[in-house]
């Protein structure tokens, strides 16, 4: 009862006082937001304010954006990519088109490129015969099958709360087998429920679990990264305090897992920064929702915590740039100084007054996370103050050492290659 009264007083009194003092600060007013996630209904209908609701008056109208309904026709896209800027010696071309909402990519052992999708419910297979590429929709009707991986002849697909295995996948492109559910101890919410898969060499896979809202006290089983054994389904939590992560990779130098993380919204156009993180010990906490970008306590959810309690990011990538898929470069096509560099696909912002991101970032960093430097590697997908012709969302290295980049806006895959 006492708690309720205090809450009521806060809800009525504080917003008025703070609204006058801090008009730009959306998170300082009112009650701490928490959610009762103990009932299944919560997971079916997460709070309506998960991406809207915390914005200030100045931010109103920056609404969720939708890409084009149909993939960009090849001729248009070939014209569009003339806008892409790359370092000298690099070139970009269209690798494949007609792939609605293309997301994570994974190579089959025999050269099939598997591609997940966002809302399109599909998984695609891109095959190459003498440079002639064919796109085939091999799976339909899955809920946000954004993440794909390939191991020992099997295709793994994650569709929100089910990790599915399709055996003998490359020989079954015309008719995929019924899947085996490998792991399903996951909540079914869609908000930040789409996932990314990073398989390691030992039969394990890293899976991120975003919170079903912008910011709040995360319900149990979210805001974490798990490592799941794909044979046994045994899982362990390897990282906590993680907001929405939709990308990661294993450092070929150390075997450590690195991951990108999208920071909270509605603080401002320039804070907090999105992050590149590095897990060095089991179960470490990266700060969400208490601390952002390593040094900004949340205006509401710091709750007495100091940023020094949490693992800071290796690199702050910039606010609203939306870093998604990433890869360490292990090829030999690019100049030697690119070896072991990280390439990050930045999807770009949707609720910043002037978009940023929508590019490929290059991070040069030691295996221990020291001496990090970052620079823009490829840019030009943003075509106006708030316009895209495409949005990069994942990166994979091709066998010849070139990079493939998927784009869920244009429904396409690009190839970036280097020649002296």
């Amino acid at each position, binding site marked *: 009862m006492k708690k309720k009264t205090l809450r009521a007083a806060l809800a009525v009194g504080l917003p008025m006082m703070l609204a006058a003092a801090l008009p730009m600060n959306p998170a300082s007013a009112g009650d701490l937001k928490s959610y009762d996630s103990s009932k299944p209904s919560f997971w079916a209908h997460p709070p309506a304010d998960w991406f*809207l609701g915390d914005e200030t008056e100045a931010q*109103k109208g920056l609404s969720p*954006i939708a890409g084009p309904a*149909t993939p960009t026709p090849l001729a248009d896209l070939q014209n569009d990519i003339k806008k892409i800027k790359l370092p000298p010696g690099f070139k970009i071309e269209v690798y494949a088109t007609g792939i609605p909402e293309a997301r994570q990519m994974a190579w089959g052992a025999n050269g099939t490129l598997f591609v997940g999708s966002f809302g399109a419910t599909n998984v695609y297979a891109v095959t190459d015969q003498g440079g002639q590429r064919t796109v085939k929709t091999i799976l339909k009707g899955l809920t946000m099958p954004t993440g794909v991986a390939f191991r020992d002849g099997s295709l793994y697909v994650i569709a929100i709360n089910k990790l599915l295995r399709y055996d003998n996948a490359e020989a079954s492109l015309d008719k995929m087998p019924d899947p085996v559910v490998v792991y399903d101890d996951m909540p079914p919410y869609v908000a930040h429920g789409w996932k990314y898969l990073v398989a390691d060499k030992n039969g394990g896979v890293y899976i991120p679990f975003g919170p079903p809202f912008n910011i709040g006290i995360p319900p149990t089983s979210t805001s974490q990264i798990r490592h799941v054994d794909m044979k046994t389904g045994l899982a362990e939590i390897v990282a906590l305090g993680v907001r929405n992560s939709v990308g990661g990779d294993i450092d070929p130098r150390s075997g450590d897992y690195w991951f990108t993380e999208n920071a909270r919204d509605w603080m401002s156009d320039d804070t907090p920064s999105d992050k590149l993180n590095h897990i060095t010990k089991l179960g470490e906490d990266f700060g969400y929702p208490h601390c952002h970008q390593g040094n900004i306590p949340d205006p509401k959810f710091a709750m007495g915590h100091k940023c020094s309690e949490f693992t800071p990011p290796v690199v702050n990538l910039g606010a609203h740039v939306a870093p998604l898929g990433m890869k360490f470069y292990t090829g030999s096509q690019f100049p030697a100084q690119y070896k072991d560099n990280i390439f990050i696909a930045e999807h770009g912002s949707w609720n910043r007054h002037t978009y940023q991101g929508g590019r490929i970032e290059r991070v040069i960093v030691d295996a221990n996370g020291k001496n990090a430097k970052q620079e823009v590697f490829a840019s030009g997908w943003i075509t106006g103050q708030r*316009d895209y012709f495409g949005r990069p969302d994942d990166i994979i290295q091709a066998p010849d050492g070139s990079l493939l980049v998927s784009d869920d806006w244009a429904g396409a895959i690009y190839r970036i290659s280097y020649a002296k």
Partner: protein
Amino acid sequence: MLTLRMLALAAIVSLPASASLAAQGNIPAGQEKAKPCLGCHGQNGVSSIPGIPSLAGQRDQFIQWQLVFFRNGRRANPIMAPLVANLSDEDIRNLGAYFASLPYNTVVAAGTPDPDLTAKGKEVAAHHGCANCHKEDFRGQQAAAAIADQREDYLVQALKDYRSGARPSTGVAAMTEAAGGLTDDEIPQVAHYVATLGPPGK
């Protein structure tokens, strides 16, 4: 003078086009393809059939997304499914361009606004942030539908379908989330408010 002004106008007009989405539909081709649509959706894209939405002046990208949803079965509809099954991506872009080009209907199908329902509906719309995506005039933007003066019966059904998840949403499930919190009372209120807005500036 006139030439300069025309040039300036041309520049203003061409700017948004060059910055906008890549593929533009062909309006005459869309008009040809739209012939089978008009029996239900109205000769001018203004529906007079209960439950069937008007499409005149609808947002190009919203039309296209709905056709994509019908074609791949994500929006299940036994009447629409066979009609769109063989549409190509190009057909879909042309249909979007055609319906978007038709003059917007501002004749209120629902008749005279009910002051009580309108007032409540206005509150609901404000509380749920409808204008965030549909804009202050409720004429929409990009893939967010124009809903001002749409048929009230259709709006009620659409909100129920979004709420139940029967209908998919663009914009990272924006409508699923927005409608998820609407009560049974609020749906007819907000539908009535939006359906009876009438001409802008009225």
